[in-house]
């Protein structure tokens, strides 16, 4: 069985629709992972030990295990405790949490790197501890880690292919559907790889622009 790329146009709309879903999942999970990462970082650094330790244990477990395994846990775990969410939501939560833990590690380092005098000054001006964190420390910490966070988001795009395994109809799964009726895995997977590659290049270009702006604003 040779190669025959002429089967692609007929299924192109399905595949491109899948690509839109991939972008939607990546965006959704990126937002969850960004704010979740900040939240986890603040909890890991400042919360009461009773809260802090369970969260640390959770982070430890999520850092040390594969994403695919975590997706299975979240998808089937939610069903088991009686929450029946659509696969898309389970995928966004799973991907988002996984990368929130990675982002949290970055945020923790950068929060600790913000000059202590900043907090003291904010406190002196009458801000509460929470306000000082939210309005003074976190904004500075976030700016410093945008480049590595951006890299995590590019990694997130590629890992979003995994949610096809729990039945989210994104790019990878839509290719599998097309393959199901054409028996042309090579052609469609290469097409899908090309689409991921293009989205990836786009994200890299955006990230480089943002990096330059941050550099300029310093």
């Amino acid at each position, binding site marked *: *069985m*040779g*190669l025959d790329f002429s089967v692609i146009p007929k299924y192109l709309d399905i595949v491109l629709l899948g690509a839109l879903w991939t972008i939607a999942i990546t965006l959704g999970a990126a937002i969850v992972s960004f704010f979740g990462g900040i939240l986890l970082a603040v909890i890991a650094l400042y919360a009461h030990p009773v809260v802090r330790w369970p969260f640390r244990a959770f982070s430890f*477990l999520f850092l*040390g*295990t*594969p*994403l*695919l*395994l*975590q997706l*299975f*846990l979240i998808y*089937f*775990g939610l069903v*088991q405790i009686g929450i029946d969410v659509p696969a898309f939501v389970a995928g966004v939560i799973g991907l988002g949490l996984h990368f929130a833990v990675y982002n949290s590690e970055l945020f923790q380092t950068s929060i600790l790197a913000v000059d202590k005098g900043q907090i003291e000054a904010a406190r002196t001006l009458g801000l509460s501890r929470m306000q000082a964190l939210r309005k003074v420390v976190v904004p500075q910490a976030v700016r410093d880690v945008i480049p590595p966070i951006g890299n995590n988001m590019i990694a997130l795009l*590629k*890992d*979003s*292919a*995994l949610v*096809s*395994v729990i039945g989210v109809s994104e790019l*990878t799964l839509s290719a599998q559907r097309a*393959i199901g009726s054409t028996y*042309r*895995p*090579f*052609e469609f*997977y*290469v097409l*899908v*790889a090309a689409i*991921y*590659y293009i989205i*990836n*290049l786009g994200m890299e270009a955006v990230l480089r622009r943002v990096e330059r702006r941050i550099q300029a604003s310093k």
Partner: protein
Amino acid sequence: MDYALMQRVFPFFLEAAWITIVLSVLTAILGLTCAMLGTAARLSRFRMLRFIGATYVSVFRGTPALIQLFILYFGGPQIGIQLDAFEAGVIGLGVNVGAYMTETMRGAIISVDKGQGEAARTLGMSKWQAMRNVILPQAMRLMIRPLGVNLNTLIKSTALVAAISVVELTYTAQRYIGSTYKPFEMFLIAGLLYMIIIYVVGLAVTWADRKARLN
């Protein structure tokens, strides 16, 4: 928590963990080999080789590892490559991780002070001698830690071969979740086994790093 069930299925997870270890070791060997070739190509004085090296890194880092596996395993037969799932897993993941390791190695080599190479050349060494005797020994020290990070990622990404039904840890967990409806218990067993593997590898990397720094 169903401890009795966990105890009953544990031996099967242990067997699967062994497959994950074998898979990781083979993938790491192939990955390091690809990375050496990739680094040599990227630092070569021939433009063609540099281009090939850069394309390798860009394409394999720019597309999902899962899709690369699928192209190899499901698409391979169409272009005359017949591999069983385990072989496809090792080759697919190895070539993929090799692209990441290429960047690590290249980064370490170019971060060795330029003056070192120039000094060696001034002393009459050829370019290759300077690389082998002066730059590489220093670069080796710099690359152990970041390569350890690559290894850590590699061990976790071996889970992907579950999608082409290699019976390793994640596949086993998935199968038992399906048959017992105890996702949390199964996640815990598989997760702990992964973390033990990663911890031991981490210890080895720290040891190698300290040893390299003492010399």
